[in-house]
């Protein structure tokens, strides 16, 4: 991949269009799995037949007990074509476009977007397209960086050559994010720090990274957020909102609402302020060349799914943020800007001191976020605790509530 040329400010900015987004409800199972980076197809619980395209009944035994299950991704490329014509605006602007017909080892034949170096033996991956819907992509057998392929790059949010805003550089996690994005080839990284009159641990190391620009940013200050957006908003391609306020305890162990209000002010209202100021301009830049505005990352918490009473008010603020992030996702969708929600378990930091391991290391969380952008997923549950909570929650949310309250 080559560094994109500097934008000519005289030329009109191309407006975002989306690939066809309509799907039947049953087909959204493919999207749900792809959102987490998984390749799942429907499989019949009675006869085992793997089905595609998604359907309501087994084509083999007519059972309606079809479940989405992870499938082996290998297959054979039967035929390829290159489209030079399309009836859809999104593809028309991106022609020529490669497609493949693939016979999967698990049974079905599928139509897939085709990687430029795919040969006879391929791996098929479910990816989210710019409309946020799952599509299949056929990749070469050997490991490749998907974002280096002109076509498939459209389905990723690769930070390479992009400009990133990280809202809080003061924490160990924030600094890990900066290092990870610098390593991933980001062009420019704005790093927010509230209370700019204070030096924080790691300040000088951050300043030494050539891509980094530090800027005062306090998500609880509407005026400050507006000023920052006015200054850099039209250049930001990726937002990583990692600023958070985190204190322990639930309801009875603390008097008053001030701590809870401070959590809400950053974790919920901070996101709202930032989204109101930056969202509209990012939406306008959803198709602005090779390095368009592309992603908005919210660092939430696995506690957003079910309240963790020892950190009860924090959980509530993250649940509120999660709900708002779903709204943001819907509003960013017409521009093809992906909202990535990250649900880590407890991070190994001072505010989780009393929680037993495993706790996710800040650096591991940071690299999980960069990987999600490179691979194009939108729901990220990094680390063992998050994975276990997710499994319990998907299995039976009520059971998880009871488990957490005991």
């Amino acid at each position, binding site marked *: 991949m080559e560094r994109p040329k500097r934008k000519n400010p005289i030329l009109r900015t191309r407006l975002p269009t989306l*690939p*066809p*987004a*309509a*799907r*039947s409800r049953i*087909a959204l199972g493919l999207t749900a799995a792809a959102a987490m980076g998984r390749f799942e197809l429907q499989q019949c619980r009675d006869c085992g037949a793997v089905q*595609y*395209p*998604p359907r309501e009944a087994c*084509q083999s035994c007519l059972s309606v007990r079809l479940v989405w299950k992870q499938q082996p991704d290998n297959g054979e490329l*039967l*035929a*390829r*074509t*290159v*489209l*030079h*014509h*399309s*009836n*859809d605006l*999104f*593809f028309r602007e991106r022609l020529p*476009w490669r*497609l493949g*017909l693939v*016979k999967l080892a698990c049974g079905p*034949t*599928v*139509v*897939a*977007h085709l990687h430029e170096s795919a040969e006879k033996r391929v791996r098929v991956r479910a990816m989210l*397209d710019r*409309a946020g*819907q799952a*599509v299949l992509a056929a990749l070469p057998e050997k490991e490749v960086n998907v974002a280096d392929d002109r076509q498939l790059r459209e389905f990723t949010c690769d930070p390479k050559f992009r400009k990133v805003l990280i809202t809080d550089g003061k924490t160990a996690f924030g600094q890990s994010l900066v290092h990870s994005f610098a390593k991933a080839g980001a062009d420019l990284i704005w790093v927010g720090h509230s209370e700019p009159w204070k030096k924080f641990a790691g300040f000088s190391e951050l300043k030494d990274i050539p891509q980094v620009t530090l800027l005062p940013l306090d998500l609880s200050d509407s005026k400050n957020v507006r000023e920052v957006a006015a200054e850099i908003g039209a250049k930001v391609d990726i937002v990583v909102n990692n600023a958070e306020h985190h204190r322990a305890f639930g309801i009875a162990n603390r008097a008053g609402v001030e701590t809870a209000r401070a959590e809400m002010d950053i974790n919920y209202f901070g996101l709202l302020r930032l989204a109101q100021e930056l969202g509209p301009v990012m939406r306008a830049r959803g198709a602005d060349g090779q390095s368009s505005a592309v992603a908005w990352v919210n660092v939430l918490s696995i506690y957003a799914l079910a309240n963790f009473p020892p950190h009860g008010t924090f959980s509530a603020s993250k649940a509120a943020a999660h709900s708002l992030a779903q709204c943001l996702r819907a509003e960013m969708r017409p521009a093809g800007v992906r909202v990535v929600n990250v649900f880590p378990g407890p991070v190994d930091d001072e505010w989780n001191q009393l929680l037993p391991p495993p706790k996710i290391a800040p650096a591991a969380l940071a690299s999980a976020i960069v990987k999600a952008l490179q691979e194009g997923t939108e729901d990220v549950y990094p680390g063992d605790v998050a994975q276990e909570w997710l499994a319990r929650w998907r299995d039976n949310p009520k059971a998880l509530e009871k488990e957490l309250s005991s």
Partner: protein
Amino acid sequence: MSRRGYEGVAVAVPVTVPYVRYSIRAAHWWLARALAEVISRSGLKKESIDGLSVSSFTLAPDTAIGLTQHLGLSPRWLDHIPFGGASGVVALRRAARAVQAGDAEVVACLAGDTNHVDSFRLTLANFSQFARDAVYPYGAGGPNASFAFLTAYYMGLYGAKREDFGKLCVAQRANALKFEHALFKKPLTLEEYMAARPIAEPLHLFDCVMPCAGADAFLVLHEDFARSRKIPHVKLLGTIERHNAFASDPVQMRAGWALDREDLYTQASAGPADMDFVETYDDYPVISLMQLEDLDFCGKGEGPAFVREHTFTHDGSFPLNTSGGQLSVGQAGAAGGFLGMVEAIRQLTGEAGARQVEGAKLGLVSGFGMINFDRGLGSGAAILGTAKA
């Protein structure tokens, strides 16, 4: 129970409402024109039409039943066959049984679609659940992309060359120049075919049909009735229909004809060599080759050799798509499935004018329709013969 034949069934009054590239009319307008034309040309009264069969993609929100009120018909037998390229053969089969059983005396089979400037895109986007979920989001190339895969696979497997497909297209254009309703009026050379711009490789411009508006129609009625009214007609000697055949083939290289052709030829007491002309469903030339193979005009994979051996104009060694086929006439939606049928009736009633196949007594019409996901699902064929045959 043994299979009942199609004795006594007459097929008559082939009508084409002249196609146009784009129309501001609704599908109803085109179907109305077709019905009016079959009535006036048959000399029958509107009230005598007691059976109606309708094929259309753009009639929504109406179906055949709404059309009865729109057109002021009161049929006692009604069918709606939105099966695209298979609809001509399927409409004929069903109407034939209705006439034999006495459920209807005269069935008007109509197919027609309008084409506004954005109709084709909208039809593609909502063609089927599988297409919407698993094909359209992949470049939105429509059937071009799907048939590009089949063409590429066929070329790789059987050694077909672009020139082979080109030979069919060039011959069909020559036929079309003698059909007054064909939208393509200029001759096509193989050089022009080869030099055309790519659409979905290996398909190029002249491999793809042009969507347009239009309608076709014919009547199915009892032979005795046709004779008493002196309506020129042909006989239905045999017909087959099959859907979703060979579902486990990883890529479509054959369709239902390969399963049912013996039945077809047995019904007609004739073989492939007895056919004086063939009308295939030619949305893409590779599909014509698939039909020629599956209907036993040559073996599987011998299509390319067959093409190199024969000439395909109406006066050639193997008259094929004698009115030019959809590739040179235009594809008027579901009417595309009727084009070969009305042409076969013309050939066998001696109405084909300058493109008449000399001494034509038997003709085969084949239909193929509905690329629901990765392949065409419906296939059918009919053998028609002159009233004297």
